[in-house]
């Protein structure tokens, strides 16, 4: 697999696609081994992601809602990274800051180790980064975020740690099972962050999270006013309530065949979202 980048004027199309997701997971996979964390490699991969998010590219933003297989740390960490960068972008951080934020988010959980008491995960992660990085602004921030990630939620945190914390909380909640064993939808995860868990996070960050994800976050199924069901592909920066969607059923609820499917696009002006749906409410996906 390879990713090729060409510097083009701003706004030029790019398709980071799933290759980027794999590349990010490759970096994380390496991070579980003894040979240390590869900051250079991570930096290079994350540039594609940040470029895409800076442009508001649905292909990049849509990765936030990419299906998560299993309950693994990697996809969750990658999702945390994506959400954190999207929040940073909404806050107006520049490229260097977004780059540091992305690195910090990607490696914030490297201290998680079943052999280590959870209260030392932050410390272990910080030392892990220190042990495989050179002293620089970027790595210092990554160490700080790793350390603060597992500190008491009431403890003062750096701004990047706060961004990673809210992004990480959202990413952990998406797909987590509730008391009844049902997976939380992206909208429910967002609702949890904005509701019961809201006091943990700065109001400006909560607002930025919604602006980054939209009111109907990527990966969320929504019912439209004409009876169709659509999958939210990516948010639209100018209107958090009207995302880019892909219709997946007919108005009568019949799943669209391959040949009937249309490419995703902005929610048409004449359409509106009626409600968020769980996967179990989507015909053809009930098993999920």
């Amino acid at each position: 697999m390879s990713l090729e980048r060409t510097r083009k004027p701003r706004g030029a199309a790019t398709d980071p696609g799933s290759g980027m997701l794999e590349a990010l997971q490759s970096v994380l996979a390496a991070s579980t081994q003894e040979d240390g964390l590869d900051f250079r490699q991570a930096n290079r991969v994350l540039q594609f992601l940040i470029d895409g998010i800076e442009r508001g590219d649905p292909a990049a933003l849509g990765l936030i809602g990419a299906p998560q297989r299993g309950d693994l740390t990697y996809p969750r960490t990658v999702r945390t990274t994506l959400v954190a960068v999207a929040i940073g972008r909404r806050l107006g951080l520049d490229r260097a800051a977004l780059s540091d934020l992305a690195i910090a988010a990607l490696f914030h959980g490297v201290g998680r180790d079943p052999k280590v008491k959870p209260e030392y995960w932050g410390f272990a992660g910080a030392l892990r980064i220190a042990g495989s990085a050179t002293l620089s602004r970027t790595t210092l921030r990554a160490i700080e975020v790793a350390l603060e990630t597992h500190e008491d939620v009431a403890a003062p945190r750096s701004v990047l740690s706060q961004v990673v914390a809210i992004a990480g909380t959202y990413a952990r909640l998406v797909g987590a099972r509730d008391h009844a064993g049902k997976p939380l939808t992206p909208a429910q995860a967002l609702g949890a962050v904005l509701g019961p868990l809201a006091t943990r996070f700065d109001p400006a960050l909560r607002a930025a999270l919604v602006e980054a994800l939209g009111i109907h976050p990527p990966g969320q199924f929504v019912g439209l006013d004409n009876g169709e069901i659509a999958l939210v592909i990516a948010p639209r920066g100018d209107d958090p309530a009207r995302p880019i969607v892909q219709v997946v059923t007919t108005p009568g609820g019949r799943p669209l065949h391959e040949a009937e499917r249309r490419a995703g696009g902005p929610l048409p002006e004449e359409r509106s979202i009626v409600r968020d749906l769980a996967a179990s409410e989507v015909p053809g996906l009930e098993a999920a």
Partner: protein
Amino acid sequence: VAERTDDEAIVEQARLACAAAWLLELARAVRVARLHRQQSPFAIDSRAHLARTLAAHLERFGEWSFVVTASGMFLDVDLVIRPGKRSGDGAVASSGSLEQLHELLFRDGVRRIAFPPGIPAGEVDALVGALGDASCERGHSDDLVTALWQANLTHLQFETAPYEPRLRLTTGKEVEHDLDEEIPGSFADPAAAYAELTLASAAAAKVARRGLLEAWERERGAERLEAAGRLFSRLIGVANEPGTRAALARYALTGVAESIAHTSWDEAYRTLELLRRFDADGALTAQARIDAVRCAPPEDDLGESLDQASDMELARCFEFAVGLGHAGVALLIAALAGAKRDATRDAACNALLTLCAGDPFALEAAAADPRAQVVVGVVSVLGRIGASGLSPMLARAAQHPDPGVQLAVVKALAAVPAPERAPLLAGPLASADAALSAEALRVASLEADRTIGQMILKHIEDPAFEGRPEEIRHAFFEALAGSGGDTVVPALEQMLLAGGWFARASWQRSAAAAALARIGTHAAQKALDRGLKHASEAVRSACRDARERKAA
């Protein structure tokens, strides 16, 4: 048509020549950026000239698009830089800085770099800075592409090689579920919550965002090493254990290495201070410090940088080197090797003296260095340290063919005990080099030593001695007086009295008398007394003159 084609060819040739020349200037500017402070007048001038030249070329020729391949750099399809030696194709042979420039671009994955007309000077600055940073071999977390990308360039365009992530398999079992919190039983409506956060109180939302961004600006503006110090304290606060200190010391040392690579001596010094919090005696990072010094620029570059540094920077550099401990010796030796200014070398020697006063044998390898300027510096340091046991190192240094080294060795011999000094004086005493033998005689006469006295006497008694310059011959007698003591009195008296009744005035008789007067011991005085009563007027006269000169 033919005329127009010729004109085009001329313009094309000029374009290629200008592009190659500009790349050379870029390579030099990168070197300056690496070796000098970003804001030094030299560096600023270098970058400004580079940007002006580029602007003029682009205005004349239009956009330049360089293609970077393993076999060289091309302006569109024309080769302008070929790695290695000049060939007959008209391309500029890349050597030194140019070769580094090509390697750097290719190594970090840049495959095309385009300069459109109207490119701001700030983007040329950014390019030079990024290349300068990336040219340090140290494993910087940001490579060239990342640095250029972060610079947010609007004109300069570059393409990079296809990215090939290393795919790996995980071996360990990761933590599968780390939700350390209860899943909430209720959820807010995102639309309502967002409206409350923004629309219901737009002013409060703005204040909250401004507060967050101000906090970020404060964090971002924090001095890097101060921030590192605070962070390290927090980590030590969690677990003040040897493992923590070792990890942080190693991490801090990477900063030291990077500062060395960039010849940023103040930062290197301050980072070393940070490191000392965890590794006061250097035990945790002994080898790593040696490795860090290997990140220094090539000796010539290091020397140039130090030669052009301010007194304060120079002092900081050598203060840092001393602080490094044993590892600092290599840095100081490199400075000695590369520097051209006496002031720089003197400062390096002073630092070596401070560093090695308690362990002069740390200079053992350097004493055998093939570079004369290094050995001269090291020998002078050994001479200032002055202790028993240094003569083997001086002997090694004395094997250097450079006369300057040999002179420095003889000077340094003044600081070692006379018995160790004697064997090393033999060669210089026999040398035809007047300066060397004169210095050897000066050192020989510093204190009485039977061996040295006999050595000098042997030279004086050699038939070839007569052929040496007069001032040298006198110097030998003076040195004999200084080193021989009573052991050479019989031989001097014999020279004084040589010829018996028929003795005539000679320089050797006078010199022997003067030497006896200078020795001044009871035995020497007795010998002069006997001379004064000698039947030969020449002998008596020599003794009288010697006594009078001594009295004067």
